[in-house]
């Protein structure tokens, strides 16, 4: 190996460390592999957890703005229910309750009646809401192309990005929903959450579709899925929820705080499990760095002795050892990250067809993973480095 550069400070430090890593190829490769696997696990799990957190955040933003009133089903369904369940006339009864600012009904229907719920993907749903009322909400789903629904629209729909991909639809195209033709007037921006699988229609259209399905029933009442209730400024939403439940029988209200907490708790527990297991992988990797470096320091104790003889201080030896482990961490971190980026890209490409992006690999996560690998390498190097500084030249210089 020939070099033609003049060594100065940091460059020499790094070059020497790299040569030392190169000197023990197999051992260094295994150590780097160990760190790499750890960072691979951490990044992949981190990307999974980020994707989940983002979808949950959309849910939190949506639900935290309103009290969702559904049919009292003994705990089943709740705010995530679909189908016609509640008479829409309840809306008027709720609106007159003290503390309620406004309320409007929404109707969710499965786009394909026999669709199944699964962990991997949310089913496509038809979401019917009165456009004029929904437009007043603080939380708005952003329309990327075309326009939002407006009052008076008939046979128009605004669709989510997964639907676009799955059905190859564009603004202006026509789509058949439960036997009826709808014109696509807008496409929602991607949320990585449920709205990506929405067909948003007016409440009137949704009710018409629902009537067709339930035509065998004798009920003449308009049935909706839930009623969105917005409290007046300064009104305690939990107390208002209790008031609604006590005033109107057979309904179940979910206050925003409760939902938010439920979602956040679920997210936190998930993140803890996922990141915890990844951290274990990384820690095991760092143990291999400590092990490798102790061996290297023992092998190189004579070199370290020579360095002390020519004037190296303990801090120089410390810096050199830690630079080497930091570099091992960096190389392992970058490789682990690249592996994870490749895997998540492939998996995302596959699951996207089912309307789901399982992983979200952000630049922050990239910096964090690789940075973590370097910090871990440096920390793992501290103990071997400390041992290196304890080496007495007089004891090692005459060793064979």
């Amino acid at each position, binding site marked *: *190996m*020939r070099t033609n550069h003049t060594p100065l400070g940091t460059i020499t430090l790094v070059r020497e460390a790299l040569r030392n890593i190169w*000197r023990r190829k197999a051992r260094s490769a295994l150590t780097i592999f160990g760190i790499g696997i750890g960072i691979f696990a951490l990044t992949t799990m981190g990307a999974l957890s980020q994707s989940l957190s983002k979808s949950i955040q959309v849910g939190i933003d949506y639900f935290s703005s309103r009290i969702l009133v559904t049919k009292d089903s003994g705990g089943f369904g709740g705010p995530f229910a679909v189908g016609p369940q509640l008479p829409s006339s309840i809306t008027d009864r709720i609106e007159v309750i003290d503390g309620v600012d406004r309320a409007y009904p929404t109707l969710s229907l499965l786009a394909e009646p026999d669709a199944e719920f699964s962990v991997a993907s949310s089913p496509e749903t038809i979401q019917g809401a009165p456009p004029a009322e929904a437009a007043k909400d603080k939380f708005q789903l952003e329309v990327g192309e075309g326009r939002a629904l407006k009052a008076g629209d008939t046979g128009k729909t605004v669709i989510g990005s997964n639907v676009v991909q799955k059905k190859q639809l564009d603004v202006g195209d026509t789509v058949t929903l439960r036997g009826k033709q709808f014109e696509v007037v807008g496409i929602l921006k991607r949320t990585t959450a449920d709205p990506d699988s929405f067909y948003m229609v007016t409440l009137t259209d949704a009710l018409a579709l629902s009537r067709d399905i339930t035509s065998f029933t004798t009920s003449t009442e308009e049935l909706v899925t839930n009623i969105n209730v917005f409290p007046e400024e300064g009104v305690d939403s939990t107390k208002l929820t209790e008031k609604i439940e006590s005033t109107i029988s057979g309904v179940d209200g979910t206050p925003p705080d409760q939902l938010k907490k439920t979602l956040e708790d679920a997210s936190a527990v998930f993140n803890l499990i996922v990141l915890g297991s990844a951290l274990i992988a990384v820690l095991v990797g760092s143990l291999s760095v400590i092990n490798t470096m102790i061996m290297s320091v023992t092998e190189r104790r004579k070199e370290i002795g*020579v360095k002390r*003889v020519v004037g190296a201080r303990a801090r120089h030896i410390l810096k050199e050892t830690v630079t080497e482990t930091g570099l091992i961490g960096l190389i392992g971190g970058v490789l682990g990250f690249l592996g994870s980026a490749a895997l998540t890209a492939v998996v995302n490409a596959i699951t996207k067809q089912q309307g789901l992006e399982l992983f979200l690999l952000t630049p922050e996560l990239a910096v964090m993973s690789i940075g973590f690998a370097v910090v871990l390498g440096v920390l793992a190097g501290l103990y071997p480095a400390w041992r290196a500084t304890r080496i007495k030249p*007089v004891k090692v210089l005459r060793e064979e």
Partner: protein
Amino acid sequence: MALFRKKKPQRMKGKLFTKQDDLKDLPPMVEVTGVHRTYESGAEPVRVLKGVSLKVQRGEMVALMGPSGSGKTTLLNVIGLLDTPDSGTVKFAGIDVTDLKRRKVPLFRQNEVGMIFQQKNLIPSLTAFENVYLPFRYARGKRKAGREQAREALRLVGMLERENHLPNQLSGGEQQRVAVARALVLSPAVVLADEPTGELDHKTSDDVMDLLQELNEQTGQTFVIVTHDHSVADRADRVLNMDDGKVVPEKRQAPRKRPATKPRKLAPKNRKKK
């Protein structure tokens, strides 16, 4: 000579390493007095040095001989502050350095002492140039100037052409030359060599000794060389014999054997190129 800057006798710039008569009155470069060193290894403590005293004058080349286990290397380590004596003193240019503060020891090693070892002790992951440059890496404020000095030292030992080779690409003699360059690169007052030719064949050994002798004469640096080899000792101004942890009283030394040819080239002759 940063450590001693404010103390008498002061180093006179440009004259320190000369053998001029006007420096005769200055204290010896190295003065060891009544040094004891005992190692606690195993059940019985081993007394390695039992009251060693010696003086080495400025610019002198002294050979230290004696049977194995007589304490030569330990004495060299004590002089180079790699080891601390249990009692006794070590003086450099009249200044007691025995109890030099710990943080000053690296500075002392950098500036005052150059060490050469039997096993060369080059760093395998550094090129010849980087090995010679090594002392500058740890010497604050000297890094830039060090590049030229390192090249000059390599040129002096005839290894400049091979500055970019790693130690395993050099022969034993070449490695020792690089080690010599490293020991001399910071122009130390004293060069301590522990069997510098011990691992070399006769021819290479001669080359290296020619080099050391030439440097001693050119730079006026003080050399203390531990050796078993009489042909090496013959090159010295004076031979000190050690036995059982003590320096045996001196016998008069025959006139120093001079290098075979003059003027001597510092670069080895007929060196094979790799």
